[in-house]
């Protein structure tokens, strides 16, 4: 992690009609930093990371991504959005592979259409990425023939094929069967080690503690607590973060304290 700030969020507010989703969020993401966003469902975690690559607009504040500035209430030009999407990759909860295209075509589509790469060059890169996740022999299969874990790994390859500077993950493992989660998390962890800047929304507390540099707890329309991963997860300072962690780590309500994460919290 360096001191260079690649995503700078200042005072961002998002409303749907009259309903406030979140208010006045400020956050810095440094180059090669891994930021995990956790918090109860419905607090706008997914909506927030969608604001970073402008899949959702927001109402107030500014987000600077790699020198591009998104301003609340204003729509950026097509060229600006294009540049933004070129440098920010995204992975979705529901994978969202294109069902009418093979695994390989899913990956080479954007490099060919957007970056105007030659097909062979795009294929070489795609096969290299697929080899990294052991799926090179599934290149000509259609997505629905793959398991959820395989689909998600392909989806990550698809985003990486555009050679992004920043990767956003929106609950990448919450649609997966428990035994398939490991492969996907392992790939994300490997990616983190290569120095990729990442913002991920996750419910995997152990994973967050292991991989993330910074943990952000979102609650009550804002950031309840933010800090180094271990500190936040093991000894949260705010009551809001503490009660959330207590509930996540002890879903059945045994009177253990949240700092049991330190001892390995084997709840999942």
């Amino acid at each position, binding site marked *: 992690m360096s001191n260079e700030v690649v995503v700078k969020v200042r005072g961002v507010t998002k409303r749907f009609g009259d309903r406030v989703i979140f208010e006045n969020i400020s956050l810095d993401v440094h180059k090669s930093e891994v930021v995990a966003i956790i918090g109860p469902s419905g607090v706008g975690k997914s909506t927030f990371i*969608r604001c970073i*690559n402008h*899949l959702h607009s927001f109402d107030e504040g500014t987000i600077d991504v790699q020198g591009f500035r998104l301003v609340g209430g204003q729509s950026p030009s*097509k060229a600006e959005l*294009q540049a933004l*999407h*070129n440098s*920010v*990759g*995204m992975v*979705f909860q*529901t994978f*969202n*592979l*294109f*069902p*009418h295209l093979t695994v390989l075509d899913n990956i080479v*589509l*954007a490099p060919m*259409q*957007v970056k105007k790469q030659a097909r062979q060059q795009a294929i070489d890169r795609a096969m290299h990425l697929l080899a990294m996740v052991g799926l090179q022999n599934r290149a000509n299969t*259609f997505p*629905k*023939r793959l398991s959820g874990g395989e689909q998600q790994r392909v*989806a990550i390859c*698809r*985003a990486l094929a*555009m050679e992004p500077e920043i990767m956003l993950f929106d609950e990448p493992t919450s649609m997966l069967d428990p035994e398939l989660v490991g492969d996907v998390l392992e790939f994300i962890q490997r990616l983190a080690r290569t120095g990729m800047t990442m913002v991920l929304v996750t419910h995997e507390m152990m994973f967050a503690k292991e991989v993330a540099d910074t943990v952000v707890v979102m609650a009550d329309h804002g950031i309840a607590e933010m800090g180094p991963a271990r500190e936040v997860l093991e000894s949260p300072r705010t009551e809001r973060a503490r009660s959330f962690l207590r509930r996540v780590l002890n879903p059945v309500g045994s009177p253990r304290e949240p700092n049991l994460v330190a001892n390995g919290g084997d709840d999942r």
Partner: protein
Amino acid sequence: MALGRMSRIRPLSTVSTVFIEVVRSIPVLVILFLVYYSLGQIGIKLTGMAAAIVGLGAFYATLYAEVFRAGILGVDNGQREAAIALGLSHRDVLRKIILPEAFFSILPNATNQLSNLIKDTSLVFTIGVADLMFQAQSASAVTFEPMDMFLLAGVIYFLFYLILSKVLARWELNVQRSRS
């Protein structure tokens, strides 16, 4: 027309919506009469054949517009998001992702409408086009056996329909297979 209705450009979507809703709510027989007789009165004289093509064409265009619109709206929004997040232009999102995916859900509906179109062509004899119904009518005037002639016409329509629906069903199956 479907794209027009969903367009963000207000006048375009209004015009398309009004046209679709008006035309599709009028019985096709009325449309044929309007095109053939009423347009004739205001100086646009069409032959029976031309009026039949314009009338049925306009009516079915609106039905198809709605079939396409349903198909396009039926594509999961996640697909759009994924395509946009990859940096694809709006045009490419539509061309490479939305339309090809919508095609699969559009196909069965579209082929249904085609079968309806064949049957609705029987209405054009009312504006003097010498179609199958017209032939059956005039034949029965000669033979004085309307029952048999119209039965024959019905059988011919049925055969047309059968052949067409078999061909289309085969095509649908092929398309679905090619996908998995």
